[in-house]
């Protein structure tokens, strides 16, 4: 554990040019949302009674939380499997998770028609436990809370190191207390995503007749759980690499080499489950020269290609290739999720793999796209802000060190 570098606040100018751009994008989104609250969902979106969730649910909620699942994945490795070497990844991953989940939850609020009634949601007697969405809602809301608690150690540490005496004593006093409580928070932080990420898949179980049979299966919960982990690990790799490029953050390629085996396993598990489901449940007949098959194969490729890359030596050592594989893993999960929720969803259902005539059509409106992009921009802005102010990112002090590369060789040679 001697190699432990401690995270530290990046500092620097808060309102620099990138920040201004991000906030400007969010400003446009905020204006769009204000309009939506004043005039209803119809005027800003292309959502209809047929495609009632548009892109906000599948992208803002399902994909964003998939990316945010890096916190879940790293937590699993670092705490449960006790791989202490993963600790440097925990804080950035947790922060990204907290931000992504908060954005997901607030996106739901924007998309909800009768948002003012959601104050009833925590009221236990009104819970309908048959509803997968209720489970998602409760779990996500609790998890957002838990994630921010997980972010707190950074804040308290930052406080303890602060110049202001009151703030510093606050940090020194509550930091250790929180530290003691952390195992129970962390256990919750692993349990909750396990539950709601599978429920995100479970959500679409009931829409059975409306989803293409290649996508609809009783394995939806399992597939969503596995894909959230592969997306999450991918997101951590992408994040750390970006941090390294921008802020010279420490990046331990040996660690990634090890993690890439885990991710390869997850990606392959997904492929096995997916192909197994199609093969064993008599769905092979839906394969043919059609769009569904093409999309299905494309998705599988987005899982298979990074899996293979993660297993090859070059894919583990070459940062660029590794980064590319991780990006593909995120894209694979994102495609799978959006396809299940939107692309292969038809209000009038399917007959023998062909969409029934429904009369409904959908393409996201400018307003919807702006809100989605604006939310993502806000997320990046918050990440930058928190990283500048609080110790989240582990910065590599020996900037020319090639320790990572050596470790990779060591890790792969035995």
């Amino acid at each position, binding site marked *: 554990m001697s190699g432990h570098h401690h995270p530290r606040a990046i500092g620097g100018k808060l309102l620099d040019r990138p920040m201004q751009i991000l906030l400007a994008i969010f400003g446009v989104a905020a204006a769009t949302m204000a309009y939506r609250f004043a005039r209803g969902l119809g005027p800003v979106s292309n959502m209809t009674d047929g495609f009632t969730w548009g892109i906000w649910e599948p992208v803002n909620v399902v994909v964003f939380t998939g990316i945010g699942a890096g916190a879940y994945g790293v937590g699993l490795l670092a705490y449960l499997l006790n791989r202490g070497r993963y600790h440097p990844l925990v804080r950035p991953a947790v922060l990204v998770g907290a931000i992504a989940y908060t954005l997901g939850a607030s996106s739901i609020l924007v998309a909800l028609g009768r948002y003012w009634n959601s104050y009833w949601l925590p009221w236990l007697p009104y819970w309908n436990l048959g509803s997968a969405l209720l489970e998602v809602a409760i779990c996500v809301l609790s998890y957002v809370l838990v994630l921010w608690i997980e972010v707190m150690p950074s804040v308290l540490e930052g406080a303890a190191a602060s110049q202001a005496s009151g703030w510093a004593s606050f940090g020194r006093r509550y930091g250790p207390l929180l530290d003691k409580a952390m195992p129970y928070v962390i256990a919750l932080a692993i349990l909750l995503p396990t539950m709601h990420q599978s429920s995100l898949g479970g959500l679409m179980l009931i829409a059975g007749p409306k989803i293409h049979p290649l996508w609809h299966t009783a394995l939806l919960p399992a597939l969503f759980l596995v894909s959230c982990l592969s997306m999450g690990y991918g997101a951590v790799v992408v994040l750390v690499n970006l941090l390294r490029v921008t802020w010279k953050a420490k990046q331990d390629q040996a660690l990634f080499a090890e993690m890439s085996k885990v991710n390869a396993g997850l990606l392959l598990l997904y492929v096995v489950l997916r192909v197994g489901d199609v093969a064993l449940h008599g769905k092979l007949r839906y394969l043919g020269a059609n769009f569904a098959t093409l999309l299905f194969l494309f998705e599988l490729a987005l899982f298979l290609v990074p899996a293979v890359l993660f297993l090859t030596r070059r894919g583990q050592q070459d940062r*660029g290739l590794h980064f590319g594989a991780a990006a593909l893993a995120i894209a694979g999960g994102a495609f799978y999720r959006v396809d299940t929720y939107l692309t292969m969803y038809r209000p009038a259902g399917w007959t023998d793999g062909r969409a029934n005539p429904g009369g409904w*059509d959908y393409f996201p409106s400018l307003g919807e*796209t702006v809100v989605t992009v604006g939310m993502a921009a806000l997320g990046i802005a918050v990440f930058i802000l928190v990283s500048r102010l609080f110790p989240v990112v582990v910065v590599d002090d020996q900037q020319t060190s090639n320790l990572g590369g050596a470790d990779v060789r060591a890790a792969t040679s035995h």
Partner: protein
Amino acid sequence: MHNTGSDMIAELETKGVSRRDFVKVCTIAAGAVGLPAWAGEKMAETVETAKRKPSVIWLHFQECTGCTESLLRTSHPDLGALILDLISVDYHETLAAAAGYQIEKSLEDATRENKGKYVLVVEGAIPVKENGIYCRVAGKTAVETVKRYAADAAAVIAIGSCASWGGVPSASPNPTGASGVSAVLGRTVLTLPGCPANPYNLLGTVLQYATFGTLPKLDEKGRPEFAYKRVIHDDCPRRAHFDNGRFAKQFGDEGHRQGWCLYQLGCKGPQTHANCSLLDYCETPGAWPIGIGHPCVGCTEQGIGFNVPIGVNLPIERPTAPMAYPGIHPEHGVVSASPVAVGVGGAVIGALVGAAVVASKKLSAEDSRKE
């Protein structure tokens, strides 16, 4: 010949109808047949200048003479008189002053003289059971008479529902085997069903024949399309109530007094082909069942009139609501992808992919530099 006809209609001589009135009636008739206004003028002109009026033989069988009566009871100008004036009715049992052998002789003379040229109008059903013994005139059964005079006729017109398809006498159990002219002759003749038939429909048909020597376009049942192509329901004055779901539920209830749709009371309008709602009966507005608050009984329609109980309603034959019904899967104002939205969406995805590729390359390059 002309004299014979004039004798027969002695009591019905036209009483000073002006040329203007005559042209007006002809124009109405032309309109009813679906011809332009100039055709009406031409009709009037043709009739006025014609040296020879077409000879008409009018036969009565099983019926109430309602069609003749209604023909004679048209209001001003005296349409019945006009019809009789522009044609030469050489045989008509109701109107003839003569009787017995005298009139039978005029029938023989007229049909011999105008062989292949006269128009045969049949009013009444023809009984066919027991070799047609249920109806005999001058010792001949109706079947024999109609077959004999139809053979030499230029055109056969069956007026009224009885002659068209059997009418009232054919109502179940139809003890006499009452049948229409087409059924007896084994070929489709021009039929003008109705109980009684609207005289204007006869006028239009006859005028067209007199003027142009042609018969109007007929449907598969021999009915002129100008009068029988549409169903009562299509042009019903109460249609708005049907479209809005306002139905009289029993005679005398609030809806009935308000003049609501009579469909639920058994109106046969939706399957009854006739122009009652468009052409006033004997030029008297409202003088038809629906006009006086009674459901249409379907008198023109074989199998409905006098067969389906008055209180029973029928499916709509040709639904023509204010606008078409939605299909099972209607289009829902299909979202046309706005070019801007597509552009922004594409830019976002493109930026993500591009950034990933650039970052990947940069990272690789950085590594190789270090190596």
